[in-house]
């Protein structure tokens, strides 16, 4: 069973906080508040932008009420102390009782939810866990429960976003937002409860202000791993995901070869033929042919990368299924071999690969 909040082992912060007043002001403008996590990812434009999107995700096809439930159980399943604590606090601020939240965490079948909502939460846990990754039947079950196919695609997107952001939290060992967690049950929490519908509308309008036009399938397919994004055509999240993938592969902090290989390792760990095929095609364009690809992925070693980057291949495998203590210790050891910006990018790529490969279940 998934860990409860206070059972999660949590290391000291792994990457430094980098104050960036302009970025923090932008986060406040778009989210209504800045967060500890904003300062950890601030040095990388593609990463900070996608993190901000993940934490301000707005649904257009799936029921809005489910986002907060899904965010909390996904964060719990991924054992992200940081996100789980924040999402739990948000549920309290939104007026859900401690008893209800407790049931969501422990015994979902006892919570006051309808069958379709329970099916969604089971899907959150199943996709986040991915042992094995959910098959098409689970998606079909959600459609049978009454959700539209586009809503189900958006649910998978939401879970993939949280699988991404939860790993940012875990791999940076982002310090918990004790202020928000503490305030949620107090007077401030009650005040926030009163104004939360207004804040939500403000955040949504500001998010719409930064969203690009919805990408069509052809546009999405052109980005790295674009084929994985095609089922998201018509959803605003698709263009955000596309820009994150393009930004990640264009960023110079790590070589594009190691990034493609990290995606390949995550794909093989989760037994995803779609993402592995995308990795092969991408890496072929970077000069890594089929034979070399197979050798590198089979041995998790690539002499052409050098020891610092090569160590990321074994490490990224450990980011797929993990216990927080060991994976944070491993992350600290691996990052010690890399310049700070490269280390942060490695965390971003590992997180993005985990989100992307889970999202690829939409192609099954």
């Amino acid at each position, binding site marked *: *069973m998934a860990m409860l909040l206070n059972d999660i082992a949590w290391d000291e912060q792994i990457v430094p906080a980098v104050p960036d007043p302009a970025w923090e002001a932008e986060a406040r403008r778009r989210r209504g508040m800045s967060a500890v996590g904003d300062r950890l990812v601030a040095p990388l434009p593609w990463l900070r932008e996608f993190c901000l999107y993940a934490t301000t995700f707005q649904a257009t096809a799936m029921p809005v009420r489910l986002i907060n439930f899904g965010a909390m159980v996904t964060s719990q399943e991924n054992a992200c102390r940081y996100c789980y604590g924040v999402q739990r606090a948000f549920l309290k601020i939104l007026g859900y009782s401690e008893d209800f939240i407790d049931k969501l965490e*422990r*015994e979902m079948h*006892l919570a006051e939810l309808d069958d379709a909502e329970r099916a969604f939460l089971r899907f959150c846990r199943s996709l986040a*866990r991915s*042992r*094995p990754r959910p098959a098409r039947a689970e998606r079909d079950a959600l459609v049978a429960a009454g959700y539209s196919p586009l809503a189900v695609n958006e649910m998978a997107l939401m879970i993939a976003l949280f699988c991404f952001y939860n790993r940012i939290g875990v791999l940076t060992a982002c310090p918990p937002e004790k202020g928000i967690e503490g305030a949620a049950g107090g007077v401030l929490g009650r005040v926030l409860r009163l104004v939360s519908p207004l804040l939500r509308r403000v955040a949504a309008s500001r998010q719409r202000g930064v969203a690009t036009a919805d990408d069509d399938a052809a546009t999405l397919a052109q980005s790295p791993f674009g084929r994985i994004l095609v089922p998201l055509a018509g959803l605003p999240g698709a263009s955000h995901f596309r820009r994150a993938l393009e930004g990640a592969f264009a960023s110079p902090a790590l070589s594009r070869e190691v990034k493609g290989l990290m995606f390949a390792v995550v794909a*093989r*760990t989760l*037994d995803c033929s779609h993402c592995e095929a995308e990795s092969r095609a991408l890496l072929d364009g970077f000069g890594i042919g089929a034979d070399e690809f197979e*050798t590198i*992925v*089979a*041995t*998790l*070693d690539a002499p052409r990368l050098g*020891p610092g980057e*090569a*160590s990321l291949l*074994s490490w990224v*495998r450990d980011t797929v*299924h993990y216990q927080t203590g*060991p994976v944070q210790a491993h992350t600290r050891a691996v990052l010690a071999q890399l310049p700070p910006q490269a280390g942060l990018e490695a965390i971003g790529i590992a997180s993005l690969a985990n989100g992307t490969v889970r999202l690829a279940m939409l192609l099954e």
Partner: protein
Amino acid sequence: MRLVDWLPAALCALAAVAAAAWWMRRREGRLWRLLAEGNRKLEDLQRQFERFVPADIVDRLSGDAAAWAPERRRVTMLFADLRGFTALCDRLDPAVAVDILNGYFAHMDAAIARHHGHVNELVGDGLLALFGAFEANAWQERDAVLAALDMRAALARYNESLAKRSLPALKFGVGIHCGEVVAGVLGAGVLSKFGVTGDPINVASRIEGLTRDFAVDLLVSEDVRIRLDARFRVREMPPAAVKGKARPIVTFHVEGVADAAPVA
């Protein structure tokens, strides 16, 4: 009829309804508390169970039992056995012998878990670890060999701590083989457990037995060796006849892995 005439009766009825509601609410509260207590106990039991079986396996076993229909899958098996521990037991106080053995298992379990393996069985001073049994693992042979090398290092550290307590050093033999086995819940009733069965299990056990004959601590089969890359230093051993096999089998002693390469 005037209001005052039926008011007492109405008040009595109202009081009865209120009492019934109060009683039912109290009863419901007590049932919820019992349910919550039952849930807590089940959670505790599940957490205890998770000490022995991976957490997601526990979840799946406690959910849909049909999800555990037996299936064939490729698995890598690691057998480890302590050398001369039975004789040692005869000389040591039983509590000390058990303490030494439990310390040994704790070190081995940690080394195996670090490399994506699960200890499936403890038999006396021996253990069976599986790689790729519970979930697809494309690197299972490599993981098993790295786990064995990690076990070798862990045993050396453990022996240092035993020496400080003036206790004898331990020696082990490890055999590793891979192949297709049947995986599922084996046994019946309270004696059932998740496990694997098939000829590769026997071969792995025989290979572990060969470590005595060749006086080495770690042997792997040809099927495992071909999946190791050049960083692993291996030495071919002479073909050896083993029980249940018509032809002698070839094994390889794994001496180590290149230090410079980041393999863990």
